[in-house]
């Protein structure tokens, strides 16, 4: 049995702020197996960025505190590792952000930036070695060839052209591909993509999605795809987790999850998307809870059209048919009204 690349179990994270303790992550259980792309879907404030930052190792640990649960990456329990060991794991994780301009330095050519990254990974992130290699002609030439290779992998027809350009001279879609190529440069085992196509035009998005699917299949990557766009999740992610107010409320194979949602929030989300057949979408009443004083029990209860008195307690995660799980009392046989 191969270890999952990522396994979060009943994770609970609190944030200590000057206003008090924000209970940002209440109960997150998530698994990513090798070779699969898993979607993490939710609206703003649900905690998906916190989860991403945790996996990337950049969640500031004060003020954030892991209060309960387990974080396992590449088969290792992070709490048993030292700081240096955890840093080692960062090498295997690549990040594709929403906004390419956040990562691509406008003052340097694509070639320069990709060579930087490649040599940095090659030197195993050792500063002195990096400086030496970065200035040795042979190493730089080799890195440049590799960069051209990577650009080819993301279906850039003319890598030389792109390598010579500055990021501002490239279109949005092209920049995103460069970003993907850079993410691949460290031969990662886990890719975390945070809304990588949101800023793109819809036709460009379509091609980027096709590229991503192809890439995942070829490179045998595991990935976490964070998005608020359910349609995109359906295209790319074999399985999807739906997050609300810090809890993974439902998960399962993406198609059935969207066609027949179990959790009332998932259902509300799907119905809120205008159907191509017409008609105003249905709305979800209420607002996201305040993390300083969240409702006890199910956090969706105040907004749930099917709420009943059992919802005062936090629902257990229940296995439903065909690899699906849901955190909702409606599906607990004993609790049902």
């Amino acid at each position, binding site marked *: 049995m191969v270890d999952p690349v990522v396994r979060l179990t009943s994770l609970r994270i609190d944030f200590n702020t*000057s*206003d*008090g303790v924000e209970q940002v992550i209440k109960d997150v259980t998530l698994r990513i197996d090798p070779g699969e792309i898993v979607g993490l879907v939710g609206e703003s404030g649900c905690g998906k960025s916190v989860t991403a930052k945790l996996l990337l190792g950049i969640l500031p640990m004060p003020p954030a505190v892991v209060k309960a649960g387990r974080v396992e990456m590449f088969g290792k329990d992070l709490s048993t590792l030292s700081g240096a060991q955890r840093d080692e794991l960062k090498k295997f994780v690549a990040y594709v952000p929403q906004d390419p301009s956040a990562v691509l330095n406008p003052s340097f050519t694509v070639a320069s930036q990709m060579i930087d990254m490649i040599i940095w990974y090659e030197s195993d992130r050792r500063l002195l070695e990096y400086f030496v290699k970065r200035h040795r002609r042979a190493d730089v030439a080799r890195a440049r060839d590799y960069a051209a290779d990577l650009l080819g992998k993301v279906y850039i027809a003319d890598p030389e052209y792109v390598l010579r350009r500055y990021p501002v001279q490239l279109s949005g879609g092209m920049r995103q591909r460069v970003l993907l190529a850079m993410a691949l440069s460290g031969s990662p085992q886990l890719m975390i993509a945070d809304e990588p196509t949101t800023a793109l035009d819809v036709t460009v998005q379509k091609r980027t999605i096709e590229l991503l699917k192809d890439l995942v299949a070829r490179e045998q990557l595991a990935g976490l795809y964070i998005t608020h766009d359910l349609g995109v999740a359906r295209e790319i992610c074999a399985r999807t987790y739906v997050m609300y107010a810090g809890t993974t409320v439902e998960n399962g194979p993406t198609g059935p999850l969207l066609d027949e949602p179990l959790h009332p929030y998932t259902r509300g989300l799907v119905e809120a998307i205008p159907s191509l057949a017409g*008609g*105003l979408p*249905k*709305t979800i*009443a*209420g*607002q996201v*809870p*305040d993390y*300083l*004083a969240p*409702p*006890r*029990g199910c956090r969706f*209860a*105040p*907004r749930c*059209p099917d*709420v*009943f*008195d059992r*919802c*005062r307690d936090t629902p257990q995660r229940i296995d439903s048919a065909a690899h699906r799980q849901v955190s909702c009392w409606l599906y607990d046989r004993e609790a049902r*009204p």
Partner: protein
Amino acid sequence: MAMTAIDDTVPASRDLAVVDAEVAPVRKTGFRRRLSRFMRNRLAVVGIAALTLLVLVAVLAPWIAPYPDDVADSLNFEAVLSPPSLEHPMGTDEVGRDVLTRVMFGARWSLAMAAIVLAIAVAIGVPLGLCAGYYGGALEQVLMRITDGFSAVPALVLALAITVLLGPSLLNAMVAIGLVWWRSFARIAHGQTLSKKQENYVTVAKSLGASDFHIMFREILPNISSPLFVSISLNAGYAVLTGTALSFLGAGARPPTPEWGQMVASSRNYLPDAWWASLFPGIAIFITVVSFNLIGDGLRDYFSED
């Protein structure tokens, strides 16, 4: 098309709903929260404390000063240049006046100096910078080149020249410094306006037909106030310093006005023996300038966290 009821505040009523009432959290109000954040900067707090003390001393001087008569001409031959003692904690100067009293009254002049100078400088510099940034084109070029011209000459030299023209007096010194000091405010206002005028809310105001005056002073100005406040605070210290320098050079306050710079000047002949007459006013200047600087730094750090 079917319409659903929507309400941002109250969840739709449900028959079976047994829901914990949502309690609005007790959060510190905006002002108190910002205050506590500012207070985290210890040095800035020290600066504020010192400045508060200074202001209190300045305001209460006539009542708390030990020898209020010594502010004006007062000759006390027996006590000339006596060292610090119980009767005169800061000693006496070359005509026998109590240094402590004069230092206390001097605070009034220095703070007045800061206030008047900054008022003049801001009143000239900020509208100038706003107009230059907002209108652009030829007006911008003309205004900014004038600003550059004023910036080319060191403040003290220019202020000195103006004071000589107007005639040496403390008031003239304040005006002179104000006329020189506006340039940094103009530059800040200009740069900030350039960036803010692209913001959507400015476009909205324009499209609604708001006047240029409204856009500059009601839309843009409140959004550029932070760097201006930082600059005001940092400049206050230097304004005081320049004022004391002018007085020291004889172009500002004339004796017997108990202005610190003037006091340092007139007593410096007696250094190093009668050190107290020059030193204590000097320390007062130092504390004032440093307090303003600390506050300014604190404000800058506070705003940059936003």
